[in-house]
């Protein structure tokens, strides 16, 4: 067990955990930030996506000890009232079905749009390739990413 000081959603949090614990389980088990989801544990589904200094990472494959001073943003910290342009676009297209994958989809989309504010369809598809939606909401995700890009 070791102590870690983490900057999460603009707040500093201290946790005492095994150094190898993936950030995903630190968030979910120790900080009660359950918006970030577990889907595979091997960086194959994207459900656990969060931002480290604005870059999308799979928190299931990120040992907490690898995090230094980077700012961690989770779905809960993306916007105050759920009104980030990407979240608004998600509602406009009524994207979710079961909804479980959507935190990860949104976090991937937000980081991607920051890098590429005017993406083409193939660019969106490649950027979202790591996020599985078993319910199959891909078309609405793509439409919502485009709407967010234009807003």
């Amino acid at each position, binding site marked *: *067990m070791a102590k870690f000081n983490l900057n999460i959603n603009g707040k500093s949090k201290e946790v005492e*955990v*095994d150094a*190898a*614990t*993936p950030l995903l*389980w630190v968030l*979910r*088990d*120790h900080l*009660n*930030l*359950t*918006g*970030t*989801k*577990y*889907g*595979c*544990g*091997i960086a*194959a*589904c994207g*459900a656990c996506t969060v931002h480290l200094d604005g870059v999308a990472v799979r928190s299931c494959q990120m040992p907490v000890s690898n995090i230094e001073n980077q700012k961690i943003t*989770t*779905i*809960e910290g993306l916007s105050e009232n*759920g009104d980030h342009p990407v*979240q608004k676009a*998600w*509602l406009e297209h*009524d*994207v*979710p*079905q*079961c*909804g*479980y*994958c*959507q935190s990860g989809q*949104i976090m991937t989309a937000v980081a991607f749009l920051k890098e590429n504010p005017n993406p083409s369809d*193939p660019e*969106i*598809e*490649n950027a*979202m*390739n*790591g*996020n*599985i*939606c*078993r*319910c*199959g*909401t*891909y*078309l*609405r*995700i*793509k439409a919502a990413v485009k709407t967010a890009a234009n807003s």
Partner: protein
Amino acid sequence: MLPKLPFFKTKEPKNQSKVFIPSRREFLKISSLVTGGFVMGINFQCAGPKGEVITFAPNVYINISSDNVITLIAHRSEMGTGIRTTLPMIVADEMGAEWSKVKIAQAEGDEEKYGDQNTDGSYSIRMFYEPMRLAGGTARQMLQAAAAAKWGVDVSECSTENSQVLHSSGKKIKFGDLVADMGKMEIPKPESITLKEFSSYKLIGKDVMIYDAKDMSTGKAIYGADVDLPNMQIAVIRRSPVVGAKVISFNDEKAMAIPGVNRVVKIEGAGNPPGLDKPLEGVAVIADNTWAAMKGRDALEIEWDLGENQTYSSSKQLEEMLKSTTGDGKLRRERGDFKAAQRNAGKRIERTYLAPFYAHATIEPPAAIAHYQGDGICEIWAPTQHPQWARQAVADALNIDLYNVTVNVTLLGGGFGRKSKPDFVVEAALLSKAAKSPVRVQWTREDDLHHDFLHAQSAQRIKATLDKNGNLSGWNHHTVFPAIGATASATELHPSDGELGLGCIDFPFDVPNIRIESHESKAHTRIGWLRSVSNIHHSFATNCMLDELAEAKGEDPVDFLSGLLGEDKNLNFEGEIKGQFGNYGESIEKFPLNTGRLKRVIEIVAKEANWKNAVAEGKAMGFAAHKSFLTYVACIVRVEKGADGKLLIPEVFYAVDCGIGVNTDRIRSQFEGGAQFATSLAMTSAITLENGKVQQNNFDGYEIIRMPQSPKKIHVHIVESMEKPTGVGEPPVPPYIAALCNAMYKLTGERIYQLPFKA
């Protein structure tokens, strides 16, 4: 206990519904959202075959608070279909409630209160459309009467809108302001309720956003593993690697040495057969947190007696199953004389079709939380499709009274049939009792793929004959796959009538000689039901064969199928089916198979997709039509080779007749998702077993279609209809797979006889 499979249900309800005012305590128990005000319940009951009272629909609870907030109870599980939104929406629309301010509370599992809560078989809308309207209509009529009495006007001059009663003079009163009067009102009899004209609905028949969309987009939605209880511990289990395996001994020294690990507990499995509601044999590591439990589980040393399934190979069994279809099987339907048709045939065509085991791979792996409180009381939080079965299974496993088990239903991160089975809920209950604290059982993705209730692999052989004029004269369909029932009873060697009623014996075409046979096979792993169940493989074989027969006859497949449906008529298969025809739990009189409705969706989809127009070089289209779960669907898939040589699916066209389209946006979303789901089944996913063990571990081995390979456009034409509404969760899947395979043939010149295919 065998589940009440939806396609086995045969209830002919005689309406004995009544309206009542439940005790406030009872309502408060269900809904922490309610702040007081008027509560009414509408109880839908009917007489069973022996005159006993069956609650066939929920008590619909409606709460109107004095600050004019309307709270409705959702009694079905939300797993992505939108049902948690759509059923309350029906009540609200009929009632005239202001939808944007309606609150929805989720019911716990309670058969007496809510009737059937098994969210499965695409039947929620079919079963509850009428009761929900009646409930809303009852509330509206009472509100109007209360306002009329207050104003001293005639009730016929009153209507409702935006949670207000309006008088023709322009006077208005909020529902909330009538709360005090409501309790004094006489409760109207169900037969005195007049429902609104369909054209006056503001929500029914429209696109309505799901209630949980915002929570789902902000990380606030609560799924199975998201509930946090004080002193909760986390369990991860090493389950029998082969179904039926038993623990001989285990050493937990290394596991217990991991910081955070508190306890190791053995779970006893049922052995063989494994059962549909029992946990598998296993050893659980219970820890302070998930990571410690996972590491502890990895450190376990277990000696297994692998039992009789340890030599099982799915590929070998599939070969044997295929071989078995060459002989005569058990006769399941017969019309005319197929053997005579064969003797007199101008042409005989025989083809075989193979499909693999599939896992559900819901994006949320199973997880459940139990709090065994001693004194025989247990509370559960779980993403379950069937809270009542979970409640019963927990009561049985702990040997406690059913009434002392509370099952709270969270949102489900996908269900597709997996989360009907309560095995994972029972695990949590057993472990909470052992640990004397609340326990969350967390399945990893590996656990989920290794220990699913799989969709059965199948072999089919179809022999068809064309007469001397080239017309289809004979259809002989052989099907073999391990039955769902075999998971509970080892003597089940043939698929049940119910499973064959899903796209096999209900073959709707006008062929003079039909012979349908099943063959024996054993289950060596747990078999369950997956979105559209045996329609998946039956439609694949039937619709691919029909495409080939059209070609043999030299006819366009769309024209061929429409022609084969003959005159518009209702089919009842009378005298032909050997055994029971389930018809998805409905009587054939109430929900006949109407060939005209199937022809109509075929006609529409062909028009929308410009089927008759030639396609450019390097592009192709494929077509199939299939009725399942009482919903008629036709599908055309366009394919082409992408620049990188990979297959592209640029466009999909669906036409669907599901009767009244209740929430049109959610109908479309089910079809959009259904096409993506079916693409995975057709092209990327398969489970295989060797030495009795599942060989795929995670999404790297069991692949799900991702955005770049997924269909690019999906058009859904919802046929305007005033027929009784039917479900749409499952019907998109079966025709899509065959339409895609038929398109592949046009593109490559090669027929597909085995799933999944690579392209």
